[in-house]
């Protein structure tokens, strides 16, 4: 269910980045060892007065296992097992709804990089890339504007971030109607200029609407994080730049943006996940992947392969590919974040 996963994704790298962003950015995690969860294994005997890393704060030999049991059972059954099974199936040709399996090794993966499958992969990369860049860029700009001393920023912000409470399905329907060539308001305006674009029958236009809708949806979410980040910016580097005679734009580019890089990297991950996975509802509602497969991103292709073309093995391979891509991006983000913070801003 994309909701819980959005929550997971939002906090996924955030939790993990919390784990690795030390010192200035975090509040004390006791030993100052970045709160690396692996280190929890060593119970800390010294408990600080105010907050501490608790050792065995409570007694109970069986109790902790009981407390953990429901969680472990659920994640083993409904997360780990399906993940393993998906990985397993990706090496098979699955026929007749799973009744017959034929081992094919990496053939499914090879098939993903051939002809029309390759175009799905490329299309996903390009469209996701555009969505991420536009959504983050626009939110950064808006946050900078909201950070200026003008009146009404709170109302502006509220009116700008509210779409983060929407589902992509609802947004999809709204955009579907808004861009309808006959009765949609967009074309009403454009007709004044003499054009009446057929948004959902021309591939490139359909892609444009998809990108716009996805950016529109994620903008608010990004703005929330950037706004908070702006409020927490340390003042000295900015003041120093001012003293050095830097113009506002230079200050922004060379001081503010680098200072914001941890947030930017975090948003990069969450926006990519959003574009990869949450776009399903929007595609299904607006275009069903058409026209001529132009809005078929990988997540939609996985659905079609598994549930319409009965190519379960291929779909599993495609899902694995997306999984690997997301993990790679998370790792990249972690590495970059660590490096950024280590070498200072």
């Amino acid at each position, binding site marked *: 269910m994309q909701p819980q996963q959005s929550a997971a994704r939002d906090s996924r790298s955030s939790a993990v980045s919390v784990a690795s962003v030390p010192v200035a950015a975090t509040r004390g995690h006791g030993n100052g060892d970045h709160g690396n969860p692996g280190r929890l294994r060593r119970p800390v005997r010294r408990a600080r007065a105010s907050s501490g890393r608790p050792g065995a704060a409570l007694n109970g030999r069986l109790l902790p296992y009981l407390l953990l049991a429901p969680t472990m059972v659920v994640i083993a059954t409904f997360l780990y097992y399906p993940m*393993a099974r998906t990985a397993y199936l990706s090496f098979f040709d699955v*026929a*007749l*709804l*799973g009744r*017959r399996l034929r081992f094919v090794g990496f053939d499914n993966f090879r098939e993903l990089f051939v002809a029309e499958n390759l175009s799905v992969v490329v299309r996903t990369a390009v469209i996701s890339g555009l969505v991420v860049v536009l959504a983050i860029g626009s939110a950064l700009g808006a946050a900078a504007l909201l950070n200026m001393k003008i009146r009404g920023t709170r109302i502006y912000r509220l009116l700008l971030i509210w779409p983060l409470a929407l589902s992509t399905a609802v947004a999809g329907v709204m955009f579907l109607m808004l861009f309808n060539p006959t009765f949609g308001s967009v074309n009403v305006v454009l007709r004044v200029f003499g054009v009446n674009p057929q948004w959902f029958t021309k591939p490139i236009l359909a892609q444009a609407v998809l990108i716009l809708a996805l950016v529109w949806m994620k903008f608010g979410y990004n703005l929330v994080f950037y706004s908070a980040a702006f409020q927490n910016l340390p003042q000295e580097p900015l003041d120093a730049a001012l003293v050095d005679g830097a113009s506002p734009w230079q200050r922004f580019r060379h001081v503010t943006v680098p200072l914001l890089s941890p947030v930017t990297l975090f948003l990069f991950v969450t926006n990519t996940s959003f574009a990869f996975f949450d776009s399903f509802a929007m595609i299904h509602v607006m275009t069903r992947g058409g026209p001529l497969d132009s809005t078929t991103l990988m997540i939609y292709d996985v659905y079609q392969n598994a549930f319409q*073309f009965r190519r379960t093995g291929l779909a599993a391979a495609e899902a694995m590919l997306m999984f690997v891509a997301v993990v790679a991006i998370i790792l990249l983000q972690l590495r970059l974040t660590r490096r950024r913070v280590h070498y200072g801003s």
Partner: protein
Amino acid sequence: MKRVLRAGVAALAASVVTVAGCSSDGDDDGGTDELNANGDIVVHFWHGYGGQRLEWVNQAVAKYNAQAKGVEVRAESKTDYDKLFDAVLLAAGTKAAPELAQVVVTYTSAALKSGAFTTISDADTEKTIDPSSYMDAVVGQLTVDGKLTSVPWAHSGPVLFYDKGLFRKAGLDPEKPPATWPELLAACEALVKVSKVSEYCIGIPWHPWFVENWMAGQDVPLLDHDNGRSGDAERAALDSEVAQTVFQNWKQLYDEHYYPYSTEGYDFPRQMFSESKTAMTVSSIADAGYFQGAFAEQKRELGIGFFPSASEKPAIGTTLGGASVWLTAGLSPKTKQAALDFLAWLTSPEMAAEWHKATGYFPVNKKAEAILQSEGWFEKNPAFYVALDQLKETKVTPATSGPLHSAMPEVNDAIMKALEQVLIGNVPAADALKSAQEASNSSILRMNKIK
């Protein structure tokens, strides 16, 4: 972080190995009997019917349960044949699996390959079912490698239903329905454009069976190797000229507004015809019972003719449609016998005759036809005989024997996807069929690799 990653990957790898080890793709445990509150054996019977046919099945099952000892049959509708097939495959090997399930004739090979069923020849040790008591044509289609796969039950041919009254009004001969494509077009022009007695001309259910039949009528099999009957098929014939003609015909009907487009299977054209929005409809003879009843109520005159051919040449015949009843795999001896007993009763001469009278499905039991003849049923209802007539007049060739291959579900999907593109996507028939051909071929070859 690295530690988390390493541990997580290790856990994942461990679970993949476990999953691989425990994976059973098709093992069915030796069955146990399911008993109801009275200790009777429960036999679940899944079929694909709604509406009037569903009613008939429910009444028949009730009748059987009333007189059967130690058995309770429970019928369940799965809406249509495709959903039914998917449901059985998914349920196979689990507690939710039925004992009996209908499988449409086209999926005979797929059913065999799925391992979810046992053939009648293998299962029927007590010889409860006698293959020679059924229509030869049907038994022939259901016999693979010398084994009778399933019990014939609900079989049909495609026919043309038409409104005699509207024909008269349009100046057409109500006793001579169109038999070739040019005749069909002429009739449509008369009905819709000239005398304007009907909003649309003809409905066609959104189903690949009609494409198959239009091709078979021109003696072009859907698959090579004699429609998959003289060896594993390797390619479909969707790139043939005939296939293109069929698609172009359908498109022509759409463009001329003779045909109301809908992807809702059989329901939509059935409704359109009974509401008099189309003057004709092709459909299965199994709709005869329904249409006859509806027309009688509305005091209209129903006409039934042979399925029209796709060209000016008359068709050489039609393929068999409908669904037989299969026994699922892994049943205990007692349950299996109970299921077979029910099947024998369901396809007995009396019940087969009743089923025919209510729907129009072929009287699959040879003696049933005799009963109907002796009752004079066909004299009073000559229209019901049309499909049987058509079947008897069919020249038996690989084309009219229907396709046999386990990839048929996917081939069917490819055909309808291509058709949709041609009708509303403005894709030329040749291109759409080429894609369908490629998709079908790769499905066929993939299934061939699974032994």
